[in-house]
């Protein structure tokens, strides 16, 4: 997978650096090897965490990586981008003692980085099943599904509208967690199973129709994620200098952004995208970065542990402030806000201006479900594709998973959902679809 040489994201260093071999051994040796382990229960992909950690401690690094990738084929990305503080590490029983929890993410990175660097492959494609599955979108959900389907011998084709696959794992996650080139390495390694056909630059719905895809494949998996940044419907929203946060992050991760003229940057929102964006602007050298959120600090939905670091970095915040107009002459120069009360209601007359020559909107992303809206059998809930526990949409042969079904969670959820859908698809292909094929091929009479 090829990325541009020059990318603004490359100025970032790992916020959680890799462990040395000695440190990894010492940390792994602390693990209590809990039975029915809370960390595993907390992991959406149910990685057998005590087992992979024990294998690090016994010097069985290959087995350790195998345990991780068996459960989660993007185990290296996840080791860095997962909010471990609220998942596995948050569940570690050491939290109930006066000792720090095991650094599970870093240990997972230790084993998986090593495996990818060594080129160890743990899985082979299954014998050719004669079935073919199309995957719409090339993000974590589809990659996980594609790999699982290859293990079961199905032919798979990924249709991705962008020029690169990986979805937000490549274009969205903060570069101080993982850079696009590291994820690209993992994806190339994942594709090493062989037989995953990748078609980039193909927008399903525009370049190819659903009817064509259903014709071409025996089953489809939809992992299209979320859409463009939501915008604010206020005066001046179209002024240059006002843009979506996710679009900005993508520009910074895949290419270069010029911030040399930016003195005051505002990021609107209180979720994780907004918190990432303030840290990223700060890291890219913008001196004055302010988070503008309509609620209180205590009520912000973004992870507390991430916001804490942003504050330490020197980021400012305007709490209980709602932008009502973007102002400027040909380009944004300031933002008019109104103070909000504790019920997130504007306080009449409490307006104030914040200077800004860059405004990023991190208030959410559009849902892309409409893309499937016309397909009989598919149900949407406010733009989200509705599925059962195994990702089935209700339309024969059509599964979905990841952000487009869960409304926007984490990479690890997308991986888990992609895998579980793939297992359901395999079952469908080897039973229902196989029977239908046999009936068709059987001589009449």
């Amino acid at each position: 997978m090829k990325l541009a040489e020059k990318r603004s994201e490359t100025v970032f260093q790992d916020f959680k650096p890799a462990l040395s071999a000695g440190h990894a051994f010492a940390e792994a040796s602390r693990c209590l090897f809990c039975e029915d382990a809370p960390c595993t229960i907390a992991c959406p992909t149910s990685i057998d965490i005590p087992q992979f950690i024990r294998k690090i401690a016994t010097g069985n690094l290959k087995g350790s990586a195998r345990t991780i990738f068996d459960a989660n084929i993007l185990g290296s990305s996840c080791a860095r981008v997962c909010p471990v503080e609220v998942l596995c590490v948050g569940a570690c029983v050491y939290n109930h003692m006066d000792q720090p929890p095991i650094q599970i993410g870093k240990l997972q990175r230790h084993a998986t980085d090593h495996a990818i660097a060594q080129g160890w492959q743990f899985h082979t494609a299954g014998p050719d099943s004669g079935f073919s599955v199309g995957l719409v979108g090339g993000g974590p959900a589809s990659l996980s599904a594609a790999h699982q389907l290859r293990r079961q011998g199905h032919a798979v084709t990924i249709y991705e509208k962008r020029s690169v696959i990986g979805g937000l794992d490549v274009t969205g996650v903060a570069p101080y967690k993982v850079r696009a080139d590291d994820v690209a390495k993992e994806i190339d390694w994942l594709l090493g199973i062989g037989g995953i056909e990748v078609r980039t630059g193909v927008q399903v719905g525009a370049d190819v129709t659903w009817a064509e895809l259903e014709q071409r494949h025996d089953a489809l998996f939809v992992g299209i994620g979320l859409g463009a940044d939501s915008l604010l419907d206020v005066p001046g929203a179209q002024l240059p200098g006002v843009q979506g946060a996710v679009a900005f992050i993508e520009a910074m991760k895949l290419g270069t952004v010029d911030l040399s003229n930016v003195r005051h940057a505002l990021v609107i929102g209180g979720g994780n995208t907004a918190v990432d964006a303030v840290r990223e602007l700060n890291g890219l050298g913008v001196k004055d970065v302010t988070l503008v959120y309509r609620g209180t600090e205590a009520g912000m939905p973004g992870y507390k542990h991430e916001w804490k670091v942003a504050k330490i970095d020197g980021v400012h915040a305007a709490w209980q402030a709602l932008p009502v107009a973007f102002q400027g002459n040909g380009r944004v120069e300031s933002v008019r806000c109104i103070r909000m009360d504790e019920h997130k209601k504007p306080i009449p007359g409490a307006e104030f201006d914040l200077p800004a020559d860059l405004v990023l909107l991190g208030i959410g992303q559009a849902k892309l479900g409409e893309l499937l809206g016309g397909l009989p059998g598919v149900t949407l809930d406010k733009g989200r594709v509705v599925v059962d526990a195994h990702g089935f949409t209700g339309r024969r042969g059509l599964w979905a998973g990841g952000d487009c079904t869960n409304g926007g969670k984490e990479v690890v959820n997308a991986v888990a959902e992609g895998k579980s859908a793939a297992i359901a698809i395999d079952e469908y292909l080897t039973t229902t679809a196989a029977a239908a094929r046999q009936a068709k091929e059987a001589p009449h009479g």
Partner: protein
Amino acid sequence: MVDLRSNTGGIRSPNPFWLASAPPTNSGAQIMRAFEAGWGGAVWKTLGQPIQNVSSRFGSHNYGAKKTIGFNNVELITDRPLEVNFREIYEVKKRFPDHAVIVSLMVETEEEWKDLIMRSMDAGADGLELNFGCPHGMCERGMGSAVGQEPKVNERITGWVTSYSKIPVLVKLTPNVSDIVPHGLAAQRGGAQGVSLINTIKSIIGVDVDKFVLYPTVGDKSTNGGYCGAAVKPIALHMVGALSRDPRFSLPISGIGGVANWRDAVEFMLLGASSVQVCTEVMLKGYRIVEDMIEGLSEYMIRHKFETLEDFRGKAVASYSEWGELNVNFEQVAKIDASKCIGCYDCVAACRDGAHQCIEPAAVGAPRVPVIDESECVGCNLCEIVCPVQDCITMVEVDNGYAPASWNEHVYQGAAVRYKKGSH
């Protein structure tokens, strides 16, 4: 793919990992769960006349914050009725025909031995293990290590058993002897198909310094128990090695004592074991540890291009020499990687007080990295052992110009021996 199948004196199992006769093999339900987890064999908790156990049975030897580097117990043989055990043995074998089920036995009279042997065979057992090793409770009754410590008795009882048994017989040896070899040879003369070792070591695990009672306390008293777990591995390895290198001894060995992971198991196999048995680590962490043992062993074999266990079994035995055969002209010195040193000076204290006074603190004003006087360093490894940092102190071979020579060659053939270091 590598072939992990193992054969210990005719007892075959899909892999060399067996559960030792102990609480993890107390019942059929447990053993079936263990086989599902991946264990290749199990030696049933010793059968005999069911006993009464005491409450509070185990003690732990901790070192600093590290819990249970050694473990001890005052538990006796099975306390479950014989007919229940035999019915469960039958059920396990029916469900797992390819796994090894070995029945451990300990009784007194020839009649009793004969009875339990017949019933074990009827239940479908793959082999017998004679518990001549238990160092507490049973030996006072003339069984266990009381038998294992007396080669003549060992040989006689092994002879009875082998005359009745149509399935392979392993004699489980006690380590509570000064030299293991005569006991292994006694089992061999008795007609056994193999030996397993070690059973537990007679021990007092600790003393409650405020209540003035030994651990593990049973009310206001205690007794000596059997020591096992990680700490006993060196003793077990030595005994396995001693039998393997003895030209008179030729029986297959099932290695036991402190096996906690695949690497420990490989060490036993390199010293000649055909299978290994685990008790304490399973008691501490459960059956699921076997996953790493199987995988770690497989990866080890792939790395070394070994296809079967026989390709490396006993491969380290030849390196086990008498002291007099070691090359006294071989010389190594310690080197410190200054970039890794954290300046704890533990090596300074160790060498100064516990070795040969050749590591000094850095000069005043210089970076806090100790300085080794290589001209005085005897190459003993102590500093490398105490250093907390991986690969910071390493032992490096030096060429002193002397041809290799053992002490024996020096004494009997006048071979030249290098200048003696550190004898100031």
